[in-house]
């Protein structure tokens, strides 16, 4: 798994399949409001796409998609997006995580909540995707 596989078929298949998996991941993430899905599942699918590349074309060649030096930073940034949304709500006079107090002018509370859910799911997706990739990299030991 460390080196490039000998078989070109696997490499071509993985390179073709990974973007499709990631596309499905993005669809699942954005469709979370209307059907099964959401941040976590989308993040896992996005990570699965990258992991497929990592397995098929080797560790070195798949650094372009997500460099493994950046995974932990991105993970903590993703969690900070989530927690920061809560903190903003706290500073604007509401309780922690009370999205109705977010400073968005000209919207009723329910709509703010609708977009806030989408926004925090971005953080969840980022954190889950990069964390799983980071765990894989550490398990492989490079």
């Amino acid at each position, binding site marked *: 798994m460390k080196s490039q596989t000998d078989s070109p078929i696997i490499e071509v298949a993985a390179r073709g399949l990974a973007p499709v998996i990631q596309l499905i991941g993005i669809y699942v993430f954005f469709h979370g409001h*209307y*059907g*099964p899905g959401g941040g*976590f599942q989308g993040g896992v699918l996005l990570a699965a796409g990258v992991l497929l590349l990592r397995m098929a074309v080797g560790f070195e060649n798949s650094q372009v998609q997500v460099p493994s030096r950046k995974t932990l930073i991105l993970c903590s940034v993703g969690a900070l997006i989530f927690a920061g949304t809560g903190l903003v709500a706290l500073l604007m006079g509401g309780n922690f995580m009370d999205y109705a107090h977010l400073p968005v002018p000209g919207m009723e509370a329910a709509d703010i909540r609708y977009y806030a859910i989408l926004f925090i799911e971005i953080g969840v997706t980022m954190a*889950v995707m990069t*964390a*799983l990739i980071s*765990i894989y990299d*550490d*398990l492989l*030991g490079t």
Partner: protein
Amino acid sequence: MLELLKGHYAYFFLMLLFVIGLYAMMMKKNLMKKIMGMSMVQSATIMVWIVAAFKHGGTVPILDRSIPVDNPDLYINPLPHTLMLTAIVVAVVTLGVSFALVISIYRNFKSLDEPTILKRMK
């Protein structure tokens, strides 16, 4: 008796699964098998909640315009589903950390067999 079985067989199966997992965690000697038992215990616990959320005649907890929300009996309870989503994530991450530990053990002792490891620890 049959009535009891029909209403509860899911619980009985899940308790059986829980006990199988616990048995594997305690009695199996290979560390990977222990981890498998661990994930079975967690799966059994998760499914107990899911079974508890089920309602006869209820639909999935996604709003359907043709089914009124005023009557909660028509939708399955969404609360346990949410909680178990979190529990699944926790289970996966625990699995990841345990694999890291297993790899670390293998680096130090070159074995995954518990008696061998204990012998080499001396």
